[in-house]
């Protein structure tokens, strides 16, 4: 009955359409949705063809674990962009949170000693700092009504300068004993899967569900689509917008928690350009840059595409790895061009 909508007054069909399904073509995601997935598959095939070690457990774990930081941030960024916002400060925010977290743990060390409570305290501080940072961005956007671009451009500079100041221009290092205890959070895992990958997977799945099946996700899309309509439809536009920034801040905190045990230090160059990678991943994944439509699983694919390019360039020795940025840039521009040709069609 999928093709019976034309002849009769459509209403009769619609009234009993509970059982009716859209045609197969309508149910399949469009080419624009499948594009990033195809690109990912092609990249994997290319990588496997160029280097036999590409599909080895070690390399896959390496790629995924390094994707995880940007990935968690990009999932949060998906909600911000979907609701019509933007956050340029996440990279600096991660560096700042890492610096604060390490300094706090070092300061607590004499009183608490090396142990799990100290690590947990550090994690709590990271999440708290992320929450406050996100809250600051969100309040400036919603209450002070300043453009998100301007707000987060400002806080990007502030966080970056603060961490440089905290490190006195150098590096903030975690106490060696604590670092040994904390290391497994990045390097170890469960069932052979590294913790960052597991946490990223949980965040991605929860994000996808939140976007598709909860009011929060629906409201984000509604606000990004037309915030006036959302306001007239009894949606608390300001609160939802604020929540997207707070959520992103929390996820930056979570990413930092997974990142700090990797190097055990933070400096003025920690998290450099993460914001661009996160935004790029969101856009490549098919989320509309001007808001109104978000696709969390697309963002995950976007993150993987970006990390794979990096990885293949290093492994394949085909093109200089220094051209990584060039290739990523081309892909980002292409993704937006494809989006536009879709919407104008």
């Amino acid at each position, binding site marked *: 009955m999928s093709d019976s*909508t034309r002849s009769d007054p459509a209403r009769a069909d619609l009234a009993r359409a509970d059982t009716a399904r*859209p045609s197969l073509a309508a149910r399949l995601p469009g080419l624009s949705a499948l594009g990033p997935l195809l690109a990912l598959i092609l990249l994997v095939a290319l990588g496997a063809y160029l280097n036999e070690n590409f599909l080895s457990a070690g390399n896959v774990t390496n790629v995924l674990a390094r994707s995880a930081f940007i990935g968690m941030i990009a999932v949060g960024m998906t909600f911000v962009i979907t609701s019509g916002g933007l956050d340029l400060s996440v990279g600096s925010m991660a560096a700042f949170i890492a610096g604060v977290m390490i300094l706090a743990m070092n300061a607590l060390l004499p009183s608490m000693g090396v142990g799990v409570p100290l690590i947990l305290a550090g994690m709590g501080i990271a999440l708290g700092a992320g929450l406050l940072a996100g809250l600051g961005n969100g309040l400036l956007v919603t209450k002070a009504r300043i453009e998100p671009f301007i707000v987060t451009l400002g806080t990007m500079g502030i966080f970056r300068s603060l961490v440089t100041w905290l490190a006195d221009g150098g590096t903030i290092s975690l106490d060696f004993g604590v670092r040994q205890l904390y290391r497994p959070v990045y390097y170890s895992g469960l069932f052979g899967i590294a913790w960052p990958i597991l946490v990223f997977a949980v965040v991605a799945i929860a994000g996808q569900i939140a976007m598709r099946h909860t009011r929060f996700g629906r409201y984000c899309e509604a606000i990004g*689509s*037309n915030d006036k309509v959302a*306001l007239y*439809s009894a*949606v608390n536009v300001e609160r939802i917008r604020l929540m997207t920034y707070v959520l992103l801040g929390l996820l930056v905190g979570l990413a930092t928690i997974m990142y700090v045990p990797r190097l055990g230090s933070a400096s003025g160059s920690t998290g450099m350009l993460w914001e661009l990678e996160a935004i790029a991943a969101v856009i490549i994944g098919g989320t509309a840059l001007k808001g109104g*439509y978000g696709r969390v699983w697309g963002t995950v694919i976007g993150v993987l595409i970006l990390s794979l390019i990096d990885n293949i360039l290093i492994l394949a020795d085909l093109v200089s790895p220094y051209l990584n940025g060039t290739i990523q840039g081309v892909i980002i521009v292409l993704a937006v061009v494809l989006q536009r040709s879709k919407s104008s069609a």
Partner: protein
Amino acid sequence: MSTAPERAAAPVLELVDVRKSFGPIEILHGIDFALHAGEVHALIGENGAGKSTIMKILGGFLAPSSGAVRLDGAPAPYTTGAQAEALGVVVIHQEFNLAPDLTVSENIWLGRELGGLFLDHRAMRTGTQALLDELDSPIRPEARIRDLPVSDRQMVEIAKALARKARVLVMDEPSAVLTHKEVEVLFRQIERLRAQGVALLYTSHRLEEITRLADRVTVLRDGAVVRKAGRGELTEDGMATAMVGRKLEDIYPPKRHHAGAVALEVRGFSVPPLVKDISFTLRRGEVLGISGLVGSGRTELAEGLVGLRPASGEILRHGVPVKVGSVREAAACGMAYLTEDRKEHGLLLDKNLAVNLTLSTLARFGTPFIDAGREEAALTRAIGDFDIRAPRRDMKVGNLSGGNQQKLLLAKTMLGDPEVVIIDEPTRGIDVGTKSQIYAFIDALAAEGRSVIVISSDMPEILGLSDRVLVMRHGRIAGELEGERLTENAVVRLVMGTNEQASGSASHV
């Protein structure tokens, strides 16, 4: 009826038997209309009578479906607004066509800048100053449009028209945005242009302006010319009667509402800056019409009542004072507002039917996860109840016809089961068949015991639906009409401010 003064001079710009259809609906039925050099020709009629369509055809923005546009006796050679301007036919739209961040001078020369590789700023400024001097205007050529009051912007538009050597100037309700004093300035400029031999078309809802300015008057009703008159041949009363002049059609349901207890009482309600000191009551099962010109504060009042605008004053539901600071709080008090602007404020055009239907009541569809099955069931019910005709359920709402969009918006509003429903312009841009369906829905709401407020610029609609009518003027209630006294003439007079005896009408222009 045709008693227009015969003139020897041929018209500058003329419509001959012009018809215009949008889709299957013809909205102009054979219009003959002429503009003469050195004359002000007023075009009046109710909203939707076809005035703006005529102005668009004259200005080259729309092509007639049949009939001819003649410039100097020959078929008009233009097909776009820009081409028409180049030939001296200039339209000043209600929403001005000025770049707010550019200066007066830059706007006036926009697209025709003087100079070669580099702009000749001095020549343009001198030219602008000369134009403004000619208009006796103190505006500085360097002023930014953004910093100018509305009346000055109007003057810049006129200067721009002069700079383009306008022979025909079409003005769409230029006085609507002006204060009394500014209107005087505008009139002097119009009289000056007339003396210079420009052919002017003037529209306004303020009939006293027509009496003062117009050398000829053409009255439109339902897309046809119903009256042509020369200066002094038609009183303001006569104009109002000619504009209204029709029987109510039977697309309206019979009035059989039995008003119950007071459901809503509003006391001393103000929505700054326009709406001041509004008080009224609304009963269960009653349809209350609110009439008035665009800009009289009707929408502002409604939006204030449901918490979309900051407001002061008292709202009582069933005699109990309630606080309404947001749409959510309004919904909690059983009040809902259906916006006049369904494309910008009502519906998410790039989302599907179900998402739109449930947006304002999403909490009822499951927590924490939205139950897609319940959403689909609600859509099925809405499609049945409100006769929404969509080729596909998962299509974007922006691709629905205006009538079906409006039905969906109505379904969305009613999903919250409000007791008090405020419907702003229920049938704007909707064909007649769907109109009568929407009237039937509104009637059914009242019959169920709900209280309905209908805001409309459409006079027959207000009269056909309402048990009682409030007329707003300049942000205040100009009068209330009910029963025997509820006639088209009475409403039009209150709306236009030509009424002397109606109760509560204290304001004059």
